[in-house]
């Protein structure tokens, strides 16, 4: 993993390597260098399998982070590429032409985070939600409790207990 990181650093302006396991590492890539890095990993380094493409909402830093996790099937090594970009008018280059499966991930990210991937097939079709009429629900500024209260009726009489206190009361009612 370290050797790979050093080889990549000669080619692309990568960030530090975070090595979680000997066979799993993460590096940060500037958005402009994402595609060449992915292509290099796929065609020259044997990372042919796109395991997943997922997003993190860094609300406080006003950033979205995409993680492209690639796997090398012959060595069993995984590398994750992290890309950060601003939340306002969030958009990222589509990679559906590198891995066709990416189109499905990108559809989901468009729906759940509102990240645009121009050119990705069927991007604006509904993926999981039907008739959604609010901001994308996986964004952290979306208040899911408020939405649930406004849309779905509560049944009166629901109680909530702190598990620790409740079990203490159940097991030791006289406070012993």
């Amino acid at each position: 993993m370290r050797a790979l990181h050093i080889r990549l650093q000669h080619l692309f302006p990568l960030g530090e390597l975070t090595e979680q396991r000997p066979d799993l590492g993460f590096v940060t890539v500037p958005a402009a260098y994402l595609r060449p890095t992915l292509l290099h990993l796929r065609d020259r380094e044997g990372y042919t399998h796109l395991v997943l493409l997922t997003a993190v909402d860094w609300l406080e830093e006003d950033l979205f982070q995409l993680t492209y996790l690639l796997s090398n099937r012959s060595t069993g090594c995984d590398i994750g590429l992290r890309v950060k970009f601003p939340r306002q008018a969030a958009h990222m280059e589509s990679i559906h032409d590198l891995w066709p499966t990416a189109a499905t991930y990108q559809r989901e990210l468009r729906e759940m985070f509102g990240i645009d991937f121009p050119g990705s097939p069927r991007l604006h079709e509904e993926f999981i939600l039907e008739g959604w009429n609010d901001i994308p629900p996986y964004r952290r500024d979306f208040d899911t409790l408020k939405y649930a209260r406004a849309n779905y009726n509560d049944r009166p009489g629901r109680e909530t207990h702190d598990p620790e206190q409740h079990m203490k009361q159940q097991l030791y009612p006289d406070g012993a």
Partner: protein
Amino acid sequence: MEQELKPELQIRKVKGPDGVEFEVEPLRDYYCEALPTVQHGAYIQIVEDFFNWARSHSLWILGFGTGCGAIEMRPLMTPRFDAYRYGIQWRPTPRQANLLVISGYLSVKTLKRAIRAYEQMQSPKYVVGLGSCTINGGMYWDSYNTIKRLDDYMPVDLYIVGCMPRPEALLAGFEDLKKLIRAGKAEGANQYAEKFDWYKSNQKRVIHDWDMPDYSW
């Protein structure tokens, strides 16, 4: 806002096998426009009691699993718990079933399908809500896409509590449902017909892309 109908529900020209072209209006031709009506009991109470006794002994469940609770139905079908000895069996289509078990949380997307399935079942029909999710939302009480009270959207005859209820609890619940039916208290289908507008307005409040007929049977 009026939602545009799905392509298969829009008026279109169809060419028959004999080469004749004709117009199809799916909402009128494939669906009945008549809304559900209240079915009155038999002319004399003892006959109605006999009917109810017979109904209680043929519970045909629609094999439609909505949440994680569907996993509790599998052991009921197999020799370990064997619900068939109680006169309960599963059917693959709503047309052949009279009991809809909502087995756990119901997302808005699934609710749409559940309503269609319920409306396609024949009266008298019963609904059992299974698990705490159908009662008050359960662990999905703050979720953006699951309903919290099933009885807002369809008439529920019986709830079985638990998260999840075990197959034994389901069997006990089915026995309770039989008692309700024999007592003539499982009148969900009539309730649905009586308060149809109320149920429809509740359903349309959460299903934002209503692109189907108001009553589909």
